[in-house]
């Protein structure tokens, strides 16, 4: 399978590419140059032919929708940059994908969309997102909005994965437990599940899954929809 991964400068993209390249052809892209042994195409996801060339020949797109760390642009302040990238550039990417007959995309979103709910609520995919006006959270919400409209009206299947703070279990050892943590290797596994065959029978153009770490003491296992639908099976625990 030919897979395009955006946000190549991020640690998640690096982890995804390393794992998925064992079985797939990976093309990485970002708006800044990066060092990698894999195929890399620098692209600003504009509305010109270069975005079409970027997605041409791809079977899947993993759109992490992340700006490079500490990225700045003289023409826009950081708030604008985030919202612009998550709306206009997502639109350009998906428009090109539809034009080039790409059949599937996976969009990386955030569980911060649910931070306004009380901690004791059983929030899952059936709950309405309540975004704040923080540019990152609002931008992720607007990116989902954009994806949904493409999925609703175009011939492209889009899966949205929402997750929290990406960590490595060894890096947070000894720190106070944070339920927002998601182990990067479990998250890579979740993206692989979203790309996989199990979901094909769903015949849905738009699907959303919350990707959460395992919680052995929970009455109700987290990420139930992802477990039951795409075969997500987290391996890493932050608590025993």
């Amino acid at each position, binding site marked *: 399978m030919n897979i395009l991964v955006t946000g190549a400068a991020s640690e998640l993209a690096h982890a995804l590419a390393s794992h998925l390249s064992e079985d797939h052809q990976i093309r990485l892209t970002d708006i800044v140059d990066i060092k990698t042994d894999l195929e890399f195409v620098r692209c600003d996801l504009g509305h010109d032919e270069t975005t079409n060339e970027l997605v041409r020949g791809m079977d899947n797109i993993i759109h992490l929708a992340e700006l490079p760390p500490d990225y700045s642009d003289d023409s826009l302040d950081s708030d604008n940059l985030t919202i*612009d990238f998550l709306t206009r550039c997502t639109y350009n990417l998906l428009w090109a994908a539809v034009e080039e007959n790409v059949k599937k995309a996976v969009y990386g979103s955030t569980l911060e969309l649910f931070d306004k709910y009380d901690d004791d609520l059983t929030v899952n995919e059936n709950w309405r997102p309540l975004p704040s006006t923080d540019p990152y959270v609002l931008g992720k919400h607007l990116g989902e909005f954009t994806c949904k*409209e493409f999925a609703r*009206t175009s011939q492209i299947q889009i899966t949205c994965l929402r997750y929290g703070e990406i960590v490595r279990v060894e890096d947070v050892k000894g720190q106070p437990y944070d339920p927002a943590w998601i182990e990067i290797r479990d998250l890579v596994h979740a993206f692989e599940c979203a790309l996989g065959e199990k979901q094909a029978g769903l015949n849905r153009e738009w699907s959303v899954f919350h990707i959460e770490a395992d919680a052995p003491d929970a009455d109700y296992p987290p990420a139930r929809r992802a477990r039951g639908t795409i075969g997500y099976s987290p391996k890493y625990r932050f608590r025993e």
Partner: protein
Amino acid sequence: MNVLILGGTGNLGPFVVNALEPYHTLRVTDVNPPEDTAHEFRYVDMASMTQVVEAAEGMDAIVNCSVLREHRKIAFDVNTLGSYHMMSAAVTHGIKRVINTGPHAILTGPTYDHIDFMLTEDIPPHSGVDLVGGDNPYSISKSLGQEICKVFTENYDVHVMCLLFCGLKNPEHPRFFPGRDVTPFVVSVRDAAEACRLGLNVDLKSLPSKNEVFYITTDIPHGKFSNAKAKRILGFAPKDRFEVVWHKVADN
């Protein structure tokens, strides 16, 4: 009331200025200056947070008539980022009343428009990704802008009334023909402008929520869109009717 008009010299803006000027003090803004105006004018590009926020200082309400349709980059700059700037400006200056405007496809894109009837305003937005089946982000970029407005109302003490139009007609130069029917959502520019004036008058406490959407169409018999909510809450009473368009022309 001190009213900031964004996009004040575009297709709709001048009619809004005419409707409001007897009752309010206006600050008209746009990237193109008016040929002649009795009001304060400022150059404001909706893509500039600084310009929008500075223009909103001292205002009691904002009316957003700005729009850009075809060009992808500028459409997102004006329609999406522009809304973010407008709402940030409202919050910065404690402005409680914002009137946003746009096409009905902000809410009812092709998956509603091509299929359903009896459409109301209180439905999830399905803008689609292109307005007319081509490379045109007008509807989705405006819909994202309205979504930004909604999120701000859910986080701050600010009210947004979103007035949706389609088929805006200048009654002095109507571009339609008797007996040929019309898109089942049509309104004259002066009735649309009057709806903006009504939005400035309505008691905010009487609104069902801090984010309310209204179909601003003339009375139209097709059974697809209704202006009942605008009539009930805003007191909208369209004067330009266009009945001749949807009545058959008698044979001579």
